[in-house]
């Protein structure tokens, strides 16, 4: 069965068809969850929650968007809820935006090329961003979701989403440049 057939079967209540959809989209969903939460343990919980929500909502999937895009939105929403809950448990104020400090980064070329190692560093720098900035930059710049969809999933205005995005990019740029300076001084 192709994906469209699996979706129709799952909408009729066929669990094995839905399980196959889970298998087909699993790595993608996990990657997004991991990028938004910034750690493996939370990503694990988010993935499980996202697929449960998808199963409950599969009847409402009308196929206007791709199934993967629909899963991104569910995953982003589940991840955001999870991160907020985590922050409350850790008694960290939601508005607190800590300065990203990445002790793991060791040397960053001043001009960033797109080699694998440098993308790994960018990936690490993303993990160090505060969650409310990280989820916006991941959804917009990595997954190319429109501002409107991001705002809706995160429960914020489009303007707030754009402001967060700009702040997130600046912080990323600062982190990458700071590590570049460390390297320059070391040379």
């Amino acid at each position, binding site marked *: 069965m192709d994906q469209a057939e699996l979706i129709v079967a799952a909408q009729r209540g066929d669990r094995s068809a839905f399980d196959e959809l889970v298998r087909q989209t699993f790595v993608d969903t996990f990657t997004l969850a991991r990028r938004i939460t910034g750690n493996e343990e939370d990503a694990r919980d988010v993935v*499980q929650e996202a697929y449960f929500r998808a*199963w409950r909502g599969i009847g409402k999937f009308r196929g206007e968007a791709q199934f993967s895009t629909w899963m991104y939105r569910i995953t982003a929403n589940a991840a955001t809820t999870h991160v907020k809950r985590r922050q409350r448990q850790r008694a960290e104020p939601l508005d607190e935006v800590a300065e990203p400090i990445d002790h793991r980064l060791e040397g960053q070329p001043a001009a*960033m090329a797109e080699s694998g190692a440098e*993308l790994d560093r960018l990936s690490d720098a993303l993990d160090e961003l505060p969650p409310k900035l990280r989820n916006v930059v991941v959804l917009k710049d990595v997954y190319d979701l429109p501002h409107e969809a991001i705002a809706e999933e995160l429960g914020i205005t489009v303007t707030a989403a754009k402001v967060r995005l*700009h702040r997130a990019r600046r912080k990323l740029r600062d982190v*990458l440049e700071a590590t570049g300076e460390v390297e320059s001084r070391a040379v």
Partner: protein
Amino acid sequence: MQCDDVDLLMPGLVDGTAPSAPEVDEHIASCLRCQAELVRYRRLLRALRLLRTRYLEPTPGLLADTLVSLEEAVERELARSARSRRIAYAAAIGGTAMTAAATAAVLIARSRRGPERLAG
């Protein structure tokens, strides 16, 4: 036009959504710092887009765990909705029985009062 003003416009300049403004173009054309910033900004966005195709490998066994957890969650929900249905059914039966009893009581009371009124 200052460099800080251009910095605020950077997202729109990079994705082409910023309205055309001659003073901005003139500033950038004459400012090496802003030109460098634009280049860095574009590189950052290009690299972020590339992350889309760099998948992160889930822990071994996570897929299987997820399928099991999904199965359990679905079963829990089915059990919960079956319990809710039973409670609603019992409540409906109880309600019907009480209504029937009340109706019967009223009818009995009326039937007892009826002959008395006639006699009066």
